[in-house]
């Protein structure tokens, strides 16, 4: 018996040790929350009194990346505000989750407005900036574009209520970019850029634009994103549902039901497109990204927003023949309404637990409304949050003019994706889980829709419970 006990203890110890130092990273076995015991509740109550006494230098940490906030800009800010130092902290999703869990997240947190604002508000991480924005002399409320309201949330609806942040820039992320060389190679004329195509028309066009040499694909018709495969995703689904006027959220957002015709049509349309190999996907296992294909004339169309004009202007392959590229309006669902929502709107919130709310706001106001906002608009890497800065967008070349012209039309059709505030970004994984098997004939559309609905509702119930609702 004693030998047995010893054997067990020994085994346990070895497992424990191996688990601690496991090469495949199982250190997560508690590691992420190891230092949670020190969570404090600075909360909203932190005042200017404890946030930097006169002369004291305060450091504001932000996860806005160094590509978005240059050293020169930081130096400019620090010269203007000698009592504030700015520190950029590069964060990915996992590190941010761990920092939030341990209350060590930055003071100014970079987020995607369209998907994350409501979740940060519900979890009590985002500070309500309404009063500060209304009282600001740098950020004028009346000058904000309608899409800036993607950072507003009234507890139920996105786009109304308290303001939790502002977009650094945003785009009509579901527009279509064309590569004229690829259209010419397939002998297909360019579509009219004044009228939006329907999504099924885009797919038909994509088939015509896909060129094969025997079994080998020489040119794809469509790239669904600059970095990934030509497969549907949750964002694209929400835009389609918005245009089709489908209802997937209950009035109080407490449940979701994906068993509606637009969702079925969307999934059927995309599964067909994947099976037709109109772009790199899981079936043809082409590992080249959509953006690389598009920029090297090997994909005729790309789904992306205005910001992609920045890529086309600066890419070595494309900047020499900009006239070959252009933007088409965001497609619509058949018989649907024209809608050109943003799928991201990267911006930031101020951490409610910041110890220095006033200094964080000073930085926030400067970064989102001050000179950096002008700098950003001039580059054309996204649309400004202010009407008055729209005129700063590039308008010199024919390419600039074509894109700017289509954009003016698109701006009239701003709308918000029907994001469920409790599901937030959780829909992406759920969507992939149930839709991917369809490409391989391993499931049916009805099963997929039932699965998405079930998992989404489980996640919503959990999020509501977590928020004490």
């Amino acid at each position: 018996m004693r030998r047995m006990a010893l054997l067990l203890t020994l085994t346990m110890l070895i497992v424990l040790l191996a688990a601690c130092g496991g090469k495949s990273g199982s250190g997560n076995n508690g590691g992420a929350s190891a230092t949670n015991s020190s969570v404090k509740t600075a909360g909203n109550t932190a005042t200017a009194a404890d946030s930097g006494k006169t002369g004291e230098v305060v450091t504001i940490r932000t996860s806005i990346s160094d590509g978005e906030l240059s050293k020169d800009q930081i130096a400019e800010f620090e010269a203007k505000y000698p009592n504030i130092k700015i520190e950029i902290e590069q964060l990915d999703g996992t590190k941010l989750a761990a920092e939030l869990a341990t209350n060590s997240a930055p003071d100014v947190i970079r987020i995607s407005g369209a998907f994350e604002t409501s979740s940060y508000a519900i979890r009590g991480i985002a500070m309500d900036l309404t009063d500060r924005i209304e009282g600001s002399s740098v950020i004028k409320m009346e000058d904000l574009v309608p899409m800036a309201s993607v950072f507003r949330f009234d507890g139920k609806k996105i786009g109304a209520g308290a303001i939790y942040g502002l977009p650094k820039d945003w785009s009509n992320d579901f527009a279509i970019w064309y590569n004229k060389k690829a259209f010419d190679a397939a002998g297909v004329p360019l579509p009219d850029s004044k009228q939006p195509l329907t999504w099924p028309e885009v797919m038909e066009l994509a088939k015509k634009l896909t060129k094969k040499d025997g079994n080998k694909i020489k040119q794809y018709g469509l790239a669904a994103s600059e970095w990934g495969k030509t497969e549907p995703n949750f964002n694209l689904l929400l835009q389609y549902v918005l245009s089709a006027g489908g209802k997937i959220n209950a009035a109080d957002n407490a449940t979701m039901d994906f068993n509606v015709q637009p969702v079925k049509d969307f999934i059927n349309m995309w599964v067909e497109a994947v099976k037709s190999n109109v772009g790199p996907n899981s079936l043809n296992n082409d590992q080249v990204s959509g953006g690389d294909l598009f920029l090297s004339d090997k994909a005729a169309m790309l789904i992306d927003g205005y910001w992609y004009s920045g890529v086309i202007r600066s890419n070595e392959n494309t900047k020499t023949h900009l006239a070959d590229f252009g933007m088409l309006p965001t497609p619509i669902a058949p018989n649907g309404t024209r809608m050109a929502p943003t799928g991201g709107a990267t911006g930031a919130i101020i951490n409610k637990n910041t110890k220095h709310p006033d200094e964080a706001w000073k930085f926030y106001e400067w970064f989102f409304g001050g000179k950096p906002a002008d700098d950003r608009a001039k580059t054309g890497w996204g649309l400004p949050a202010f009407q008055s800065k729209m005129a700063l967008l590039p308008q010199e070349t024919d390419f600039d003019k074509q894109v700017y012209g289509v954009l003016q039309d698109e701006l009239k059709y701003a709308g918000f994706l029907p994001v469920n505030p409790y599901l937030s970004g959780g829909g992406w994984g759920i969507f992939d889980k149930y839709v991917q098997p369809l490409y391989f004939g391993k499931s049916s559309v009805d099963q997929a829709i039932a699965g998405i609905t079930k998992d989404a509702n489980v996640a919503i119930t959990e999020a509501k419970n977590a928020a004490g609702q």
Partner: protein
Amino acid sequence: MTEKSRRIAAFYLMISPWFIIFVTLGLFPLLYGLYLSFTNYYGFNMNNLKMIGWHNYDLVFSDSDAMYALGRTLYFTAINVPLGTALALGLAILLNRSIRGGGVYRTIFYLPSLVPVISTILMWKIMFSGNGGILNAILNVFGIDAVNWLGYDHATTSLIIMTLWGAGGGILINLAGLKGIPKDLYEAASIDGAGAFQNFRRITLPLMTPIIFFNVLMGIIGSLQVYLQPILLNGSELLARPIQPNYLYVVHAFQQIFASQRFAYGMALLWVLFVVILALSIVVFLTSKYWVYYETDRER
């Protein structure tokens, strides 16, 4: 202080650097995670934690994703561990022969285990690619149809192939074991007329069983914890969901914690995994007396 207590004090003093680090950075987080698994911790409600008993553990067993992932992980382990162990042993035996340039070969075979895992995955992704991937190009030479290596039907096979490529890591310890086998045993065997196969079957294999035992145990623990490879083989970022057949258990836990902020539930998932690892390790330990040879007989 008596001589005995001085010796005990010296012992603890000497192991203290490791022991302190182990307790603070190893044991404490593990136990803290265990505590959190009985709470409703979502990553932002630390000052409002509620004890919810075994609820998270009940969830694990009614979570079809978790059970599916566990099944796939056990399947992956059941194939990966025997193949990996056999491959490492086979290569070590080949490399143990005194041939010219043996050291070079040893280095080459060991090299894959020095390559960072991210680079390994990126490299294999290109080799598995359907557009210009070398594996399909080779199949093409032999007139075999292209295979969708990362598709639904072959994704797990590809994951195993990629993992086996790193089997060279086990070669080092196998070589050490082989060098430890006394030469005179082989000499005596050859005098008795034993061939190469009998040498292997009657001398090498039995004397290598303690090493094999160690490799099997570590292999099981490592395979059950794999998560980075399946995520990045199909996706391009950590929170991407792998293709369904490669949705392994720790991937599920990782998704729950970092994509869904279900921290407490994620902890429960990982502690269930700990129990699974523990159970399998005990089985391996218990069966070891039937197949592992120890030079000095264990006390009975």
